[in-house]
């Protein structure tokens, strides 16, 4: 990319600080959307339906973030709607509190409930998590239905309406504005959140939790933030629901309610914020239509629309698992690439840990998986500014050793030192903090994010912005710096031309190089590369070797696992050979190449 073009992109970034034409149009459309239903040309019936769609959308937006983006499928979201609704119901009817004052109370109660339920839910793995949400979803329903203060199975009636300046917002039209202002704010907040440091961590949860951990993301904490955020949106929806419906019963907050909300998210497309609006709209309209004519068909009353919803859910999973939004999104032009400020000096290699000895020391490291000893008492060192290659046949224990050093799967015995500090048993996050960056044998990039965003995840520890800053967009200056640093590292590894493509579009070899850029973004003193040259063409391998030599010249230490012998022999200062979990040779490339034990391990002994 030419400097001229970069300059142009930077200038357009400045322009975007003011109101662009596109944003103006969006505002006008939003204003029209809010005002139009106030006029009597739109029938009251439709406005009421739109009110319900808005309330559903609020919940579905949170569920999209939780399920589609964060990978936590919840069937219990209706419980949080209940927490919000019952809080305001009790406060306004029993204690005469104003609904507006009950709103913060509803948010707090829902948030605290979510913190408690989330504290264990986010730790559940795989399918245990959705099953857990069913368990507490059902429990919440029984608690709502049996607590006397919540009116038991009769529920709460005569909830006062919202009022503004002495005017009660009783009709469907005034309520329309309240609901949709809330929805628009929720969508903006969610979009802002997704496009932030925290958002990238959230998006890494579903597909690359291990990678995220290796760059300092606290997985459980990040999951809990998403969980509470989604719950609070549901709680606010519950508050709106209570004052719109004016009466409450536990049946709305059980697991079947939770399934309905999940259907909204799945229908629109679980990864798509706007999909939540489409899903909420379709489910709500469909329910209304079906409630009208299905009972006639069956000749009795009942929740017959659930039949259609069940069938619809299965049909979507079978026919369009991505949901409907991606089909709609194709009609719109692709978003413009992110602006990156042009010149940022590539950060110097971090001063190595204070020690006169080697940078990394492995001392009789052992790792066992059940009865299999994967690594058996391996010792070696990596000096400052040294490239050490770790080679050995498949199953020799190379990746296991990597995972032991980076804290993903700590060693059972032995010591791992960075400088003089022991790091065995430390969390991956802390080890990243100490300046060890890594890549993965099986590439762990987030395919939907751009290359630049993926690389920026590597700088997670060099920035601070949290939930509040992200939602309110107070993180823009920090974000610009982050992306500039990410762009600089991409340039260093020769991937600057690809930074605005999504990672999923790259070839495997390119992905590996992007992973190196991401690791460099951590600004490490030690780089662990797991098969970086696999899938690269000859020219690309040479370029990669050149980059690594440059890093070494700057004082970076590199430990590389690689099968490509030409690559390793030409690059490494020293080679360590593993076989069946044990070190069988160590030394300069020429020495190792001539070692009979190494030749036997690779080619097999003469029978």
């Amino acid at each position, binding site marked *: 990319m030419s400097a001229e073009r970069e300059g142009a992109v930077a200038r357009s970034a400045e322009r975007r600080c003011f109101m662009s034409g596109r944003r103006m149009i969006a505002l006008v459309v939003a204003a029209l959307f809010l005002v139009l239903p106030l006029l009597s040309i739109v029938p009251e019936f439709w406005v009421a339906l739109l009110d319900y769609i808005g309330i559903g959308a609020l919940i579905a937006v949170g569920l999209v973030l939780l399920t589609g983006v964060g990978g936590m499928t919840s069937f219990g979201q209706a419980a949080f709607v209940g927490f919000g609704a019952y809080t305001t119901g009790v406060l306004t009817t029993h204690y005469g509190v104003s609904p507006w004052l009950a709103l913060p109370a509803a948010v707090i109660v829902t948030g605290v409930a979510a913190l408690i339920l989330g504290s264990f839910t986010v730790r559940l793995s795989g399918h245990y998590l959705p099953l857990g949400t069913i368990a*507490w979803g*059902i429990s919440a329903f029984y608690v709502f239905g049996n607590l006397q203060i919540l009116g038991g199975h009769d529920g709460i009636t005569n909830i006062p309406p919202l009022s503004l300046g002495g005017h009660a917002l009783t009709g469907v039209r005034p309520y329309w504005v309240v609901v949709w202002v809330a929805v628009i704010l929720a969508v903006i907040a969610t979009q802002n959140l997704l496009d932030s440091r925290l958002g990238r961590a959230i998006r890494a949860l579903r597909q690359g939790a291990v990678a995220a951990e290796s760059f300092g993301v606290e997985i459980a904490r990040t999951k809990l933030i998403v969980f509470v955020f989604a719950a609070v949106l549901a709680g606010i929806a519950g508050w709106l629901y209570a004052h719109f419906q004016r009466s409450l019963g536990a049946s709305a907050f059980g697991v079947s309610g939770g*399934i309905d909300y999940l259907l909204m998210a799945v229908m629109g497309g679980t990864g798509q914020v706007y999909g939540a609006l489409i899903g909420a709209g379709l489910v709500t309209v469909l329910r209304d239509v079906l409630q009208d004519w299905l009972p006639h068909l069956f000749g009795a009353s009942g929740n017959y629309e659930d*039949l259609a919803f069940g069938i*619809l859910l299965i049909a979507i999973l079978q026919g369009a698992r991505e949901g409907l939004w991606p089909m709609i999104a194709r009609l719109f032009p692709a978003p413009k690439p992110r602006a990156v400020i042009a010149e940022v000096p590539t950060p110097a290699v971090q001063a190595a840990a204070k020690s006169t000895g080697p940078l990394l020391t492995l001392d009789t490291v052992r790792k066992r998986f059940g009865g299999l000893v994967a690594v058996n008492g391996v010792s070696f060192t990596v000096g400052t500014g040294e490239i050490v290659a770790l080679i050995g046949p498949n199953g020799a224990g190379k990746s296991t050793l990597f995972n032991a050093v980076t804290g993903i799967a700590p060693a059972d015995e032995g010591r791992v030192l960075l400088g003089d500090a022991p790091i065995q048993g430390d969390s991956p996050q802390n080890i990243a903090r100490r300046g060890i960056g890594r890549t993965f044998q099986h590439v762990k990039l987030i395919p939907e994010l751009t290359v630049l965003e993926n690389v920026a995840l590597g700088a997670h520890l060099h920035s601070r912005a949290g939930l509040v800053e992200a939602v309110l967009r107070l993180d823009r200056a920090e974000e610009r710096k982050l992306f500039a640093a990410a762009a600089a590292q991409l340039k260093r590894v020769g991937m600057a031309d690809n930074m605005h493509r999504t990672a999923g579009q790259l070839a495997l070899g390119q992905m590996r190089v992007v992973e190196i850029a991401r690791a460099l973004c951590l600004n490490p003193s030690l780089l662990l590369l797991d098969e970086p040259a696999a899938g690269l063409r000859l020219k690309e391998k040479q370029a990669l070797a050149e980059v690594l030599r440059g890093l070494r010249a700057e004082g970076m230490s590199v430990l590389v696992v690689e099968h490509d012998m030409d690559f390793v022999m030409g690059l490494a200062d020293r080679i360590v050979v593993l076989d069946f979990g044990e070190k069988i040779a160590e030394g300069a490339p020429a020495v190792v190449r001539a070692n009979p034990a190494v030749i036997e391990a690779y080619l097999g002994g003469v029978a």
Partner: protein
Amino acid sequence: MDPIIILSLVQDGLVNGAIYALLAVALVLVFAVTRVILIPQGEFVAFAALSFAQIQQGLKPGTAGLLVALGIIACALDLIRDRRMLTIKLIARRLILDIALPVILYFAVAWLAPKQPGMAVAIILTLLLVAPMGPFLYRIAFRPLADASILVLLIAALGVHLALTVLGLGYFGPEGFRADPLIDGSIELGGTVIQAQQIIVVGVSLVVMLGLYVFFERTLYGKALRAVAVNRTGARLVGIPINLSGQTAFALATVIGAISGILIAPVTMLYYDSGFLISLKGFVAAITGGLSNYLLAVAGAFGVGLVQAFAAFWTSNYMEVVVFMLIVPVLVLRSLRASTVEDEE
């Protein structure tokens, strides 16, 4: 709390536990073979119980019509999906098995039920009516998703549950039913009275579980199913048809569900939507065994039964809350034991 009450609560707990154990075993079986978390298992229980009670009372059971409807849907969908490799023989086979047989059964039941046939006939009719539903539903909802993730299959299972519950309301109506006991009478033992029905429940469930054990350990077919459970690709490579094993697992689960339904129909009043809670308790038990260990699942089932019996005595309103929140520590423990290094997808 006096010993008589404790004894009778334990008795209740064991009877409930026996039912949950049957369900838990079926759930583990289906999960192992197909990776489906079979939430609709409860509907099979409820539908069987209601059909059994209805036949006893001389009514045409709702399942008769439901089975015909499911057969037609399964047949139609299969013919559409397999339209490129249809032969006359295949079409005829589908039409006979999926449509003709359920229709014949429908008329047979409609003719027999008003005569209020004996217990044995009622049991056989109920099993015949409910058992084919599992394979039908597998073909309708799950076969096209055979390669999907556990999560997608779980959401689909909930979709099936939702639809079946509504169909249950349509075919059975909102009234509850309770069947006559399989055997009247009781015996007195150590100061408490044990109903013959309770002994039947525990006895039959033990026999069924023993039968499953023999099936999986001693028969080639059972071993083939176990092979699919261990490694789907490997099983496919040695020529075990995955599709058929899925149907078989579903058929076994439905039969077990139907037996459970017949066993509890005389014990408690059941409604069209009672199955959900019953099957979820089977799940609590199955999860105790990590959805993979049959023995732990059975132990968990008796645990759930006992907890439920005592919770019902102390705090009947919050009985369900106690039972379902108990699963939380189990889930957390299971999650901690699951591998920390993530699987390659």
